[in-house]
């Protein structure tokens, strides 16, 4: 096997040579990103002048300072964030074991694979309603819904990682007598890190979308609940403000934490000579 295949088996490849602290890449990338953001503003403006259901940009921006001084919004943001992070952590743990069993195949692998298929096909709204029936209006219901929605995708991604474990590196560690624990710690787990990070990054956004739906039905706190409150009272500026909060948290975490973290952890990947 060639050198490049060793790199390729160590997780999904990203563009080589980029420094881990750099932003979104070249100046053309940044230009296109800026144009994308501007087009969103333009669409918002068009929506606001052609419809009564989209509040004007100026009106929403004027409301931002007052909105940010309301202390109780931070409690709701914190509640949603806790649910997302907690559920995602559980989803990664369950997904890891599901992936391990599926990669090993056998009886339990096949059983788990069917559960994963079932969970992938279950719409988040239906899962939220089922959780409402089972757990009534409780915190645990939200955690369960988000975990069920996210773990199958984690499992699918990590299964690819397990299946692509490099037999040649295992041979090398056998020749040099690494021992079982050392082999897991130094060979197998690092191989799975890129897959784990990719699944966390993908499922983080998914978890946010699902938590909002679950909060609509199951609890009286969080961003989803705030959306419902604002919508039921036809407070369109508040709906827009909570939408901005949602987008800011999602993109801020993605570009401010997850991507730089991923680039730092995977800094060993580089342009081959």
């Amino acid at each position, binding site marked *: 096997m060639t*050198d490049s295949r*060793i*790199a390729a088996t160590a997780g999904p490849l990203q563009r080589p040579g980029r420094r881990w602290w750099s932003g979104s890449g070249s100046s053309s990338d940044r230009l296109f990103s800026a144009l994308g953001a501007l087009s969103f503003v333009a669409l918002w403006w068009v929506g606001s002048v052609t419809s009564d259901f989209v509040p004007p940009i100026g009106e929403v921006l004027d409301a931002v300072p007052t909105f940010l001084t309301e202390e109780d919004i931070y409690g709701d943001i914190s509640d949603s964030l806790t649910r997302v992070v907690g559920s995602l952590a559980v989803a990664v743990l369950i997904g890891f074991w599901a992936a391990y069993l599926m990669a090993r195949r056998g009886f339990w692998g096949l059983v788990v694979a069917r559960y994963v298929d079932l969970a992938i096909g279950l719409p988040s709204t239906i899962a939220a309603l089922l959780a409402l029936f089972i757990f009534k209006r409780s915190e645990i219901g939200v955690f369960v819904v988000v975990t069920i929605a996210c773990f199958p995708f984690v499992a699918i991604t990590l299964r690819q990682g397990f299946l692509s474990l490099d037999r040649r590196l295992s*041979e*090398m560690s056998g020749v040099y007598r690494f021992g079982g624990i050392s082999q897991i710690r130094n060979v197998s787990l690092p191989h799975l890190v890129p897959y784990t990070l990719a699944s966390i990054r993908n499922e983080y956004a998914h978890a946010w979308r699902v938590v909002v739906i679950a909060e609509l039905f199951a609890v009286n706190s969080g961003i989803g609940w705030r959306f419902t409150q604002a919508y039921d009272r036809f407070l369109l500026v508040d709906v827009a403000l909570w939408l901005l909060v949602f987008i800011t948290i999602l993109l801020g975490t993605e570009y401010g934490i997850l991507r730089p973290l991923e680039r730092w952890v995977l800094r*060993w990947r*580089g342009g081959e*000579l």
Partner: protein
Amino acid sequence: MSPPYIDVEGLKASYDGSRLVLDGVDMAVEENEFVAVLGPSGCGKSTMLQVLSGLLRPVAGRATIAGKDMTGSSSDRPRVGYVFQDHRLLPWRTVASNIELVLEAAGLPRREWDARIDRYLDILQIGQFRDAWPMRLSGGQRQRVSIARALAIDPAVVLMDEPFSTLDEVTARTMRQQLVELWQESSRTIVFVTHSIREAIFLADRVAILTRGPARVLEDVEVPIGRPRRYEDAEITELESAIVDRVMGVWGYEEGTPA
């Protein structure tokens, strides 16, 4: 008379338990000797190294290094340095860290690690890449790290499985020359697998020629050429021609017939 340093007798090996890859290999290697194992692609050369390193249990026969059985699971088997065809470095570990891992696994004292790493990286002229990531090195540099890793553990034997076959010709020639110099300085016992007749003759004291698979030793050829050698030496060309003549029929193709 003491037994050979590496003693292989009647070695038979199989991956699936039914089809033999090695079919009664006999070979003896003296301490500090450089022996090349020559055979056509797919004949079982690498399998023999896998048995010698303890990776694969043979179906029959025995293989010992320094009097220790290499075919069981005994913990007192001597240390073996292995240079694979590809580098097999952990890409998420730096060059130094890759070597530290094998030093730790070999049970060598931590206080010696830095000195050993520096020594072998310097000998292989890659000291400046100590803290580099393997994927940022060229193919030749990675293979040098792989050789440094094999030597750093003070192995009883260094097994090399076509380590230069993926490198460009100029890099491969440079590395062959450096390997010979390294061997002469360090007096290691080296078993070097290759399918290149010229490479085998250039490097080794002796060439063990294998048959097509399932392999057994066809012939043991002494290399009566003094050192230092040049890759283009007329004597090497002459011996190469003689070996080609001898293996043509056995390896499965005759002159004038398509390979």
